[in-house]
């Protein structure tokens, strides 16, 4: 017993020595991963982390980045901005991380970005997004690999615009920044595409409200042909389940965000028709590539589930970072950022993706389709998926600059 303990202790000590030695020589590339393992974001965060881990393992097996092994240092933000900011600060100060990522909620994203910008550490978003990070709070250490709220809302608007038989649309959204941004962008874009469509006053859903009845009834009272809902997670599950009691899917249609985890957790309770989904990176609809089947396979082997959109983005995020660092030959911000903003990246979500230098946004595509029940997977998927190229969804530089001017 005593011996065993001692062995354990010395092994620990040895590990400590090794790590610090490695750190001292700058031998590892340190990725600081701040994510909401507890709190409102925890389910999404875990998926993102799983995808990231898989990418790190693959890269390390191939020899790492620039011949250096990658060290992933994970911290729990508890989905609180102050905690996230603190963790990021500590990662930068004590661990000397080379890059920060992983954040899920928009407020934590801004807190972490504030720390990263101040410390001059590159930072990229894979899950959480907020318009502010691209517009008024944008700093040239930041990039975002997933479509932002505006882009997803534009994709939804484009999809809705194609449904010639829909004449009246009721927008709904979560009552916080992301929801409001989405609804505004959707309304704006749809008006441009289809001036004939009537868009009724939006309804905003309080975060964490389990009872959707009081929102569904007024939404249906305008007799819309479709409801656009910028709602996800538990609230979306509630909306779909409780909506069935109001005959939502007989009387109208729902256009909303259906990431793979939402499809999974809805399972058989998902209505058979009337639901149209926007997804960020649905593994079943990604463009065919060499890596994709291997990724799905090893992900399933490692975690015993299908990769969700968050996992795909976590994976892509690291791969893009690795490619840029290889190209730059350094992890330093001055060398790296030009490669990020100037490079073209191939990932699971497609080839030839670029990042804009003026707002850090990647030209990530959005996926829109109709709900379908197939036999291939134990949960509903999307069918007839439109892959909307990111370029068509992004605001122009002029518009971004104008918004920046208005904000300051």
């Amino acid at each position, binding site marked *: 017993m005593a011996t065993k303990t001692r062995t354990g202790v010395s092994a620990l000590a040895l590990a400590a020595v090794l790590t610090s030695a490695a750190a001292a020589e700058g031998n590892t590339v340190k990725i600081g991963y701040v994510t909401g393992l*507890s*709190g409102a974001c925890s389910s999404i965060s875990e998926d993102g982390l799983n995808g990231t881990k898989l990418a790190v393992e693959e890269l390390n097996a191939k020899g790492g980045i620039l011949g250096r092994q990658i060290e992933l240092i994970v911290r729990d933000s508890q989905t609180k901005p102050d905690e996230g900011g603190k963790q990021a600060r500590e990662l930068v100060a004590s661990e000397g991380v080379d890059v920060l990522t992983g954040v899920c909620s928009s407020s934590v994203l801004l807190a972490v970005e504030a720390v990263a910008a101040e410390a001059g550490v590159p930072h990229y978003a894979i899950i959480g997004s907020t318009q502010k990070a691209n517009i008024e709070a944008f700093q040239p250490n930041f990039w975002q690999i997933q479509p932002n709220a505006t882009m997803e809302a534009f994709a939804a608007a484009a999809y809705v615009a194609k449904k010639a038989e829909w004449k009246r649309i009721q927008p709904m959204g979560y009552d916080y920044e992301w929801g409001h941004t989405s609804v505004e962008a959707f309304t704006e874009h749809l008006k441009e595409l289809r001036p004939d469509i009537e868009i009724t006053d939006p309804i905003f859903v309080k975060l*964490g409200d389990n009872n959707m009845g*009081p929102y569904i009834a007024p939404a249906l009272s305008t007799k819309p042909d479709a409801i656009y809902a910028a709602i996800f997670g*538990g609230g979306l599950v509630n909306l779909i389940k*409780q909506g069935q*009691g*109001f005959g939502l899917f007989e009387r109208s249609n729902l256009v909303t965000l259906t990431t793979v985890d939402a499809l999974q957790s809805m399972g*058989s309770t998902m209505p058979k028709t009337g639901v149209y989904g926007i997804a960020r990176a649905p593994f079943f609809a990604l463009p065919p590539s060499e890596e994709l089947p291997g990724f799905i396979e090893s992900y399933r082997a490692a975690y015993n589930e299908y990769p969700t959109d968050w996992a795909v983005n976590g994976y892509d995020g690291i791969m893009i970072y690795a490619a840029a660092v290889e190209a730059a030959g350094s992890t330093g911000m001055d060398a790296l950022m030009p490669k990020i903003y100037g490079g073209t990246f191939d990932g699971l979500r497609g080839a030839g993706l670029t990042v804009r230098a003026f707002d850090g946004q990647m030209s990530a595509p959005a996926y829109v389709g109709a709900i379908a029940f197939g036999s291939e997977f134990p949960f509903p998927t999307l069918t007839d998926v439109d892959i909307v190229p990111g370029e068509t969804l992004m605001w122009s530089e002029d518009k971004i600059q104008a918004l920046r001017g208005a904000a300051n």
Partner: protein
Amino acid sequence: MLFLIASGLTLIFGVSRIVNFAHGSLYMLGAFFTYALVPLIAPGTVGGFFASVLLAGLGVAAIGLIFEVIALRRVYGAPELMQLIITVALVLIIRDVVRWIWGPNSLSVPMPDAFMGALLIGDNYFPIFPFVIFGAGLAVMLVMVGVIRFTRAGILLRAGTDDRGMAALLGVNEKLIFSSVFAVGALLAGIAGGLAAPYGDVNYLLDTTVIVTAFIVVVIGGLGNLYGAFAAAMLVGITKALGILYFPRLSMVLIFLIMAAVLLARSLGRQGGPSR
């Protein structure tokens, strides 16, 4: 629905003077237990669902009882704040354990087939399930009123609420009353959680969502007042619905304003009165 949660909370406060922050956690446990039980007991049937809910409620009651006996009981003499902090500790423990066992993902409890869908009256849809919950809540309320009015336990309970000293004089085992009241409160919370489970998603953050609303209802209804809680549950539900329609930005502020107004009105009623 709200009433079920609030009634347990108000009952515990009325008798034991404990502000039970863990009430939302017990509700959440009820939902998770139901999630675990529904596939085991005649899935899809109405009977199986209610049996699962009841069993889940009993399970929650058992946990509440254990907690009361090992922790709360030791601090009845201490300042109320101690009891409060202990229930806060329970909130943290339950939340973490639930996350450990069931993971952080939102889970979905299938609704019994019979309760799916809606009643179609003219052009209006009325979803069935809320009526089922409402009916079940009403049934529980009637049972409770019956127990309180007509049984010895109820009389003792009222004695306990009105005057602890008197209850002791009556030869009532005070500890027994406190324990059973806490267990009943937990049972109500558990049943509420179980009943509501199929209607929405089930996740480990339900506790916070529920407890704040439950507090509001209990305060508006008058702390410790069962009938008040019923009326307040209605009031809060209606305010919320109207608030969403007419003042979407303010609906939550509105409810807190009502809570504050009720509290202040109460104080005006008592103003100048002696403390005893």
